Every structure is written in structure tokens, then in C-alpha cells.
């Protein structure tokens, strides 16, 4: 589905006439924001987008911020030395590296054998090359690019495109609150079902691939407070 088709599907379900030049309640721009957030969250929950890119290493440098290297970086899945026969670079914790060698930050004896990923984008390698010329092939879970043009197509698999419609409806209804919003939460539940299904597939795949990270296990999250309780009549404070 294209962005335009998704926008239309959302507006029709909300009883908005997409053919109006100025839709009354749900302008296309707002629908696009909702669809993009839905796609970004879907990719985050399932880690269904991945890419491999080359990361040049600087001489005598152990620490990097990955978002300055790859703007769409989420988490590392697999790291190896670039080039034919490049060895795997294994994940480690800082205390593992300390246990190996208290001076690991200064070890410039060659291409990295280990990496440590901390926080959103902090990344350390050990050992480090003493000269430029070494690169890593980093396979990482990638954030979804935003849908901008009417002809843009979401990066998630086509069979999950309707899930984005399910996400957008409660997002737009959140501005109204009350029963309208609560009634729309069944759409959000269905969206989470779709993300869970995708995530389970990617989880099995990443285990088989021997990747360093797995998607979030959505089925372990208790949705009762998120959906079930919310679906009850509004418990609005008395003014």
C-alpha cells in the first residue's frame, strides 16, 4: 500500500471524506504523522528492518557514537571485520574487557575481536587498529524511513501494512478522548498482535542466524492495563 492508500483507508474508517480538499477532522498531514509513528514503533518492536553497512575505524580509537556513523542505527545484530575472510567481532561487556586486560582501552594490537554496546549508541572496540584502513561490517537493526510522498511504500512487509491503519485510528482519536478513544483501542490491540507476530518470526530467525540481539518478546507484556481496562466506560474526573 502507498502512503496515499493508507491515508485514505484511515480517513474512510473514521468517516472522513478523503476527497475533500480540507478534511474536517482528520487532515492527511495528521494521518501521515500517525502512520509514520506506527511504522517506526512496529519496526522497533519487531526489529524487522536490518542492513549491513561499513564502519571505518579511526587509528587508536576505541570509542564511537553509532548514531553519528549510521543515523538509522537501532541495535547491533552482527559485527565482523570487513573484507574477505573477515572474522566475527564478538559482543562483550566492559567488565569482560577489564577482566581480559585492564589496559584494553590502549590495546592497539590489531583489528577488533570484541565490541561493547552501551546505551542508545555508545560503542567500544577491543583491540583497536593502530592505523586507519580497518573497517567493520556492522549488521544492525535499522529504523524505518518516514513516509513522505504519496507514492511512498512502508518498509515493513506488505501483509502488515493494514496494521498501520490500525495504529493510526486510535492515535487520531486520542485528541478526542472519552468513548471515541476507548472504542478505538481494539485497533491498537490488533496492531500489537501484528507486531507480535512479526517479532516472533524475526526472533526465530535471529536465533537461527546467531545474531547478537533478539526482538522484544511482546507476548510477555501484560496488555490488560493498556487495552482491556481502557475499553471500559470513561472514568472521567468530575469538574
Amino acid at each position, binding site marked *: 500500500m502507498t502512503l496515499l492508500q493508507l491515508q485514505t483507508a484511515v480517513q474512510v474508517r473514521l468517516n472522513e471524506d478523503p476527497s475533500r480538499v480540507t478534511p474536517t477532522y482528520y487532515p492527511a498531514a*495528521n494521518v501521515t*504523522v500517525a502512520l509514520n*509513528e506506527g511504522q*517506526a*514503533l512496529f*519496526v*522497533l*518492536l519487531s526489529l524487522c528492518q536490518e542492513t549491513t553497512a561499513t564502519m571505518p575505524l579511526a587509528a*587508536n*580509537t*576505541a*570509542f564511537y*557514537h553509532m*548514531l*553519528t556513523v549510521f*543515523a538509522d*542505527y*537501532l*541495535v547491533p545484530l552482527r559485527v565482523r571485520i570487513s573484507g574477505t575472510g573477515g572474522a566475527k567481532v564478538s559482543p562483550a*561487556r*566492559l*567488565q569482560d574487557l*577489564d577482566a581480559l586486560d*585492564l*589496559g*584494553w*582501552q*590502549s590495546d*592497539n594490537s590489531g583489528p577488533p575481536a570484541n565490541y*561493547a554496546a*552501551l*546505551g*542508545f*549508541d*555508545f560503542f567500544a572496540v577491543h583491540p583497536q587498529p*593502530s592505523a586507519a584502513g580497518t573497517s567493520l561490517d556492522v549488521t544492525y537493526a535499522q*529504523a*524505518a524511513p518516514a513516509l513522505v510522498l504519496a507514492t511512498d511504500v512502508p518498509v515493513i512487509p506488505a501483509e502488515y501494512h493494514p496494521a498501520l491503519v490500525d495504529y493510526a485510528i486510535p*492515535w487520531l482519536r*486520542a*485528541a478526542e*478522548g*472519552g468513548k471515541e*478513544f*476507548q472504542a478505538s*483501542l481494539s485497533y491498537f490491540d490488533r496492531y500489537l498482535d501484528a507486531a507480535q507476530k512479526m517479532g516472533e518470526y524475526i526472533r526465530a530467525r535471529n536465533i537461527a542466524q546467531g545474531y547478537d*540481539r533478539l526482538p*522484544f*518478546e511482546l507476548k510477555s*507484556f501484560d496488555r490488560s*492495563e*493498556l487495552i482491556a*481496562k*481502557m475499553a471500559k466506560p*470513561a*472514568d*472521567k*474526573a468530575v*469538574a
Partner: protein
Amino acid sequence: MADLSITVTSLETLLNTSAPANLVEWTETELYEYFDEAAKRLTRRFNVFVERDTTTTIELGTPSYSVPAGHVATIHVSVGVTDPIPDFVALYPSTVGELEALDADWVDSTGTSDTWLHDLGTQTTRLYASPDETVSGQSLAVIFNGYPETITVESAVIESMPPVLQCYFLWHGLAEARRRESDMAMPEVAAHFDERMKLVEKVIEQYWGASQ
């Protein structure tokens, strides 16, 4: 890089307004304050904003140093030099109790520092032994989790956060705005988006927030 000036526009949409000037119950400054609260909430719960600071120079006989600005939790400490090439040695983390057991005179002991601890609260990094000439003049390298610069309308970009997490800030802002006592309060919306934040926090914990 996450640009929260985009997020504030989304929040204004969900608050039924098309421009900051049309906000009735809230001001745009308040919306950014909600975002800043969200950043600090993330920081105190998870080690997500990780930085390495090497700006502190160790002085002879001075064992205690202030932690870097925004510091929440220390992850790793080492001492060394940055020039001509970085040459750092990690220090062992310890506690007052351990050092008292190791050395009754640990407060006044002087020598090559090989241990660090948080003494006198959490805002001071203390070295043991107190630095002698072998480490004085070197840099204290601290890898820490710290909250980003205060988020305001003038400073709305968080360089070290993936843009996908802008939704977390949007949801916190929406929940706080709709929880606030006013004619435009929507407690059911606030409660739902609180739960969405919990969902994303679980994800953050698994992907990025695990302690070292």
C-alpha cells in the same frame, strides 16, 4: 538524532491545536518541560545516554573529583593520557567497607590509584590510593550514564537518541497534559499513554538499558 521540535507539533495536534499560539490550557514551554521530564525519567531508569568524559585532570594528593555534568550513574573509570595516543588503565570499583577492610588508613594512603568509589554521596568519584606522582597530571576517564542537556524550545535535539523514541516523549507529554486538572483533562487518555510508555520502557530495557 531525535528532534523534539517535530514531536511538539505532533503533541499540539493531539491537544487539538494547530499552532503554539492557539494552546489554551498549556504553553509550549510547558510541553517542552514535559519532554525534559521524560528524558530524566529515561535516564534514571536505564543506562541509555552513555558518554565518556576525559576532561578531569588528576592532581597530586587530591583523591576526590566531581562527576561530569548530568551524571546519573558511573559505569566505568580509568586513568591515563590521551596524547600522543590514548593510554588508559581501568580502575577497580569498590566501596568504603571494602577499603576499610583492606587498609585501615585508606583515607590517607598515597600511591598509584587503582581503585575508585563513590564516597560522600554519588556526585564525587574518589580514587584509592590518593594520587601520587605516577598518576598526577593524567586524565580521569569516566564512562557514565547522564541526562542530556535540558530540553527547551531552543534546545530540542537529543543527538544520542534514535528518532524512533520521539514517541516516548510525545506520549509522556500527552499523558501529563491530559492529566493536568483543567476543562481539557482526559484521564482515560493519560492512563492509556502511561501504559504505552511502560511498553516502550520494557523495550528500551531489553535493547539498550541493560546494566554493564
